[in-house]
């Protein structure tokens, strides 16, 4: 049985609380896909919901707003991991519910 629990907690802690070029509050907002400035909201929402629709323009808008490439890198990573976390937690809860009632 593969257990990613410990490695996943370490990953989340690193990207949200460890050193970074984007502020912890920006990284957290990207992870949650909530509470972001307009220049980032579109990019982060696309990464979370349909990343294949991200365009050069979406990245350019974030850069023009004053973010460095390193900050964009971190924010996109946080957005992707946040979405994966929500999906994973939702599915595990559904599994628990299915087993609990059997």
């Amino acid at each position, binding site marked *: 049985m*593969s257990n990613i629990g410990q*490695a996943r907690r370490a990953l989340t802690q690193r*990207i949200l609380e460890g050193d970074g070029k984007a502020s912890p509050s920006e990284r957290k907002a990207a992870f949650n896909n909530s509470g972001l400035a307009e220049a980032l909201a579109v990019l982060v929402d696309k*990464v979370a919901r349909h990343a294949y629709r991200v365009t050069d323009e979406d990245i350019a808008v974030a850069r023009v707003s004053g973010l460095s490439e390193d900050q964009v890198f971190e924010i996109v990573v946080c957005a992707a991991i946040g979405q*994966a976390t929500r*999906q*994973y937690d939702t599915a595990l809860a559904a599994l628990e519910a*299915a087993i609990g009632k059997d």
Partner: protein
Amino acid sequence: MRLRILDSGHGFVTKALFALIRTVSRQPVLDVIKLVKYRADFYGEPMGAVTQDAMRGPSTWSVGDRELMAAFVAKTNHSEFCTKAHSAVAQGAYRDGKKVSAVLSDLETASIEEPLRATLLMLGKLTREHAVDEDDMRAVLAAGASRQQIEDALAVCFSFTVIGRLADAFGFFVPGPEAFEAGAKYLLARGYR
């Protein structure tokens, strides 16, 4: 690649490693390698630990099954890079290219075991709709997958939900099949760390 730092912002040692990879494999360095080697302490290393556990840790799913799940999640996410990359790994692991292409073209009719089919159907719904409910899980259990197998499949899905998004958001270059073949051989021999 949409961020220049991911293409060429690496340190001297990493650039030397890329030169070595190009020489030995006679292929360009895949953009996914450039991503995981950029400021690796932020993303590449901690994510590599998660993916290694999910894809190569102990599980009653074979490596081929898990690589097939990765390719299937990637295809559902419209991620061309990851679909091609992990189809190649699954084909190598199974030593059966037809099985992988049959699943990716029509899961309902592909000749695979029912627990795997039901698990893939659930991962497809989770990936498309971003949620599943207890009825979906009951269907997978009824098809014969164990609780642990479902948890293991969700771990694979976690990793590839992340990686496919990054491939598309950062605009990974999609090379020809030879580069993915070389990448697949590496992943089968060495894993994700």
